[in-house]
Structure formats: C-alpha cells, structure tokens
C-alpha cells in the first residue's frame, strides 16, 4: 500500500484525498491491510467461497408491475431535474 496505490484506489472510489489526510489514510490502510493479511496463513484449498449465508439462489417471480410509479416524487427529491430527467453538467460538447 503505497502512495501510488492509494491514488489509484481513491480515483476508482471517486474520492479525493488531500495533503495531511492522504498521509493519515494511507497509513491507516496500510495497517488494516496488514491486519487482514493474517488470513493468508489459513489453509483454504478446496474450500468454496461463502458469498451469502443463505446460499440460496434468488427466486424468480412473475413479471408483473407491483410498485407504484414514483417518477414525480423521485424527480422532486433530485438535486437537479426537469419534468422527465435528472440533470447533470453537460457531458458532450
């Protein structure tokens, strides 16, 4: 976990770290990764990963509309919207 890695993962996470904070967070991340590295020593050959405690596949259901259309309510709570869309800064010049 070096400065370059932190720069990469903070970009992947769409977060910006500045000066002092970057140093502290880099250090914290180093310690956390070192802490979880103890998993390396566990023998896990032939062990299937457990992704979910239920281990059940998601059930399918009939493709019927069950929820109300909340379009107006959802657009209303958006930081910026018009009658039909969420608005963001111009993407294509």
């Amino acid at each position: 976990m070096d400065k370059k890695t932190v720069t990469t993962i903070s970009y992947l996470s769409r977060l910006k770290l500045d000066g002092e904070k970057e140093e502290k967070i880099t250090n914290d991340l180093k310690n956390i990764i070192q802490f979880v590295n103890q998993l390396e020593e566990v023998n896990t050959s032939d062990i299937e990963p457990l992704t979910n405690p239920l281990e059940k596949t998601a059930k399918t259901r009939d493709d019927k509309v069950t929820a109300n259309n909340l379009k107006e309510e959802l657009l209303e709570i958006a930081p910026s919207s018009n009658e039909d869309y969420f608005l963001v800064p111009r993407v294509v010049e």
Partner: protein
Amino acid sequence: MISEKEISNKEVVQEVYRLINENSHLNAFVTLNEESSIKKAQDLDNNPSDCSLAGIPIAQKDLFCTKGLRTTCGSKILDNFVPPYSATVIENLENADCISIGKTNMDEFAMGSSNETSYFGNVHNPWGDKLVPGGSSGGSASAVAAGIVPAASGTDTGGSIRQPASLCGITGIKPTYGRVSRWGMIAFASSLDQAGPMARTVEDCAMLLNEMCSHDNKDTTSLDEDIPNFEENLNQSLNGRKIGVVKDLDLSSLDNSVLKVYENSLKEYVSLGAELVDISLPNLSLSVPTYYVVAPAECSSNLSRFDGVKFGRRSENPKDLEELYIQTRTEGFGDEVKRRILIGSYVLSAGYYDAYYKKAQQVRRLIKKDFDEAFSNVDVIMTPTTRGPAFEMGSKGSDPIQMYLEDLFTISANLAGLPAMSLPNGSIDNKPIGLQIIGNFLKESTILNFGHMYQTKTNWHMYTPEGLKQ
C-alpha cells in the same frame, strides 16, 4: 394504563417528547416526527386499535427509509434526503399501530462502534456523559436506556445492535439473516445487514420481532420460512438444555471483572437446569479480519450509488460530471466511511481479488462450518457481548483497528448468518455489560427463551442510570 383510559395515547406521546427535550444532551435523535405522532396518537384515542403495538412509541434508527420523514443514515451526504417510501420493517411496525417518534442518531452508514462517526455528533451514554453508547445503533440504545422510549429499531452488520445494547444495559436481538426484510434499509454490507429490535426486556424484543419479521418479495434474500410466535416459548424450562461454552475463545484480553460477570451468568444458567458443554470454534479469531475484507468490499459497491445525481446532497458548481461525483463524495462522506470504501475498492481490484476477497469468503465458510458442527451438540452458544463496558469518547485513539476489535465476539454471527442477542448480565464500576447468546439458524425462539428465563431470575435488565426500575 392506556386501555383502562388512565392515560391517553396523546399524553404518552407528549410525555415522550418532553423526555426527549429534557435529555437533549444525549443527542440520541436526529429528526423528530412530532406532528404526525401526535396526530396518530389522537386517532388511536378516538378509534382504539387492538393491534399488538397500538400506541407504543418507538424510535427508529435513521438507517430505515421513512416516507416523508428525513432519513440521513448519520451522513452529510443524505442530510436533505426525504424518502418517498418506507422500509418494509417500518411499514410492518406501523401496521401494528406503533408510533414512530423520530429517527435515532447512528454511526455514519452504520460504520462504527461508538457513535463517534456520525455527522450529527456523538451520542452520549445515559450511564455517564463521557461514555460512548456503542454503535452503530447508539442513538436507539441511548434512548431506550434513558427511558425515553420503551423500544427502538436497530440494525446489525457486525454487532451494531448487540454491542450498544451491552454498553447501554438493554436487550437487543439480531435475527437470522433473511428473517427481516432489508427493503428500504440503506445498505452497508448486503450479505451481513439485518434489522432487529432493542428494548429493556427479552419479552418486549419478542413482541417487536413478531411484527418486524415477514417474507418480502421486494427483498430477494428475504426468507420464505414459517415465522413462529416469538412470545410463545419464552417460559419453556431450560432443564437439560445445552449451552456451548467456547473453549478456544481468547479471553486473555478481558479484565477479570468482565470474566467474573460472564462466569456468574453461566452459573445462573446451571441453576436454571441448563448444562454447560465445551465446544470449539477454531476459526473464531479470524472473524474480525474476514469481516474487514467482506464488509468494506460490499460497502464500496453499495455506496457507489451516492453520487449526487438522483438524491441527497450535490456539491456546488462542479465543472463537469466527473468533478460532480468526486466532489460530492469527498464532501459528503466522513473519514471512516472513506476508509472502508477505499479498503473495499482495494480488495476488489484486479490482482487483489483472489488474495483478499475470495480468501475471506473461503474463511467465512470455515467459520460457518465451525458453528454447524457446534450446533449439532448444543442449543445455544454463550460469550460476553463485548470486551468491556462502555469506554470514554476518544479513548480508542486514532487507530481504527482498536475500534474494529470492539466487535470481536459479535461479528461471527453476522458472517454465519445466525441469530444472536445481547442482554444485560452485570455491572462493572456502575457501567452495564451484556451477555451474548448465539442460536442456530432460524432459532430465535430458542435464544429468546434462554434470555427470558435469565430475566425471570435476575434483575440486571431493570437497572437504569437512576437506579433500579420497579
């Protein structure tokens, strides 16, 4: 009293708001729901309801979406978010005619064990003003412990119901993963998150759990299993029932007084007729490092939805879309949330996925297998809930790992998806502490039975910061 008309629903609700104001220094609430609550109470006075929770004031953790009522999840990024719908858990509780008094303070996005990561400030523990209430459901625990409300909702990803219950001297249960719908709960780690009740007694928790559980088509991980009446078996005899005592639990980091409280509880259970059986959970010590790969990975993915486009806070005057995302997230998230997102992005990134994420999922299976084996031989497993009673604010310093170890005993139940409860079982320097009871898959009734029988013999659950509550 309400049914005898000695006091009206409205008077009860007004008293709750008086108590909230009187205890405002606890900072247990982020948003109050006063007008609607008084209206609902009046409606119940005019048209009495025979629903199980009729008129009962309940504080809701600010992680559940509540229609028309601000829901912040303890974060700046959601400080203006008013959901257009309610979580299934909230609907279930409100359909039983409870009154949702307000939204309780919590660690930001439920990431913390002391309530010190909330954007809305620390919550104080009613047992001592400098003491943390635990977290992340710290506001809920504090409000119940202070006697402001009889019950509250909480959520538990690694101990967020049980640890604050222990530190505040109340009872709280995390059900089996899938028992309670996660729809409308703001997601932190989807394979670990589960909602549950927090109250003074096991009996009250059972009553709330009856209403909170449901099969929900809107949550694909919601279990389609029979839901028993959780109040039915509370009084079953414990004669000959088996309690697993983890022999490879590292208790060396606990101080003697914590051990003594724990051992006294086990003795109490023996006097109730239960048998103690040594069990082994050899991979238990790996639960914290496993959790700190799995939970951040899921969090980094879940929290990518907070981008300032569709809801919540947006940064001002971004020059382009990229800057809108980055600035919004950088300004909106606190340090602990950022740390976990970064760890998650790291362990999921190309080249590291197998070494960390896959490895942790494999160890997660080993932890679950240990429990499967143990439960072939015992009814419940008991451990202390926490390593000690409530600690002082700021005392864990700036090393995040010290805080992560706070959940040493609670995390494994989340990794394995098992139900687990904390109930008050002693006091150290006038600070409460809890006992953890872990049950097998879907065996909430069993742990509630063990918990309730303990509360018929002891009165730790009746102690309040002011003394014994009669």
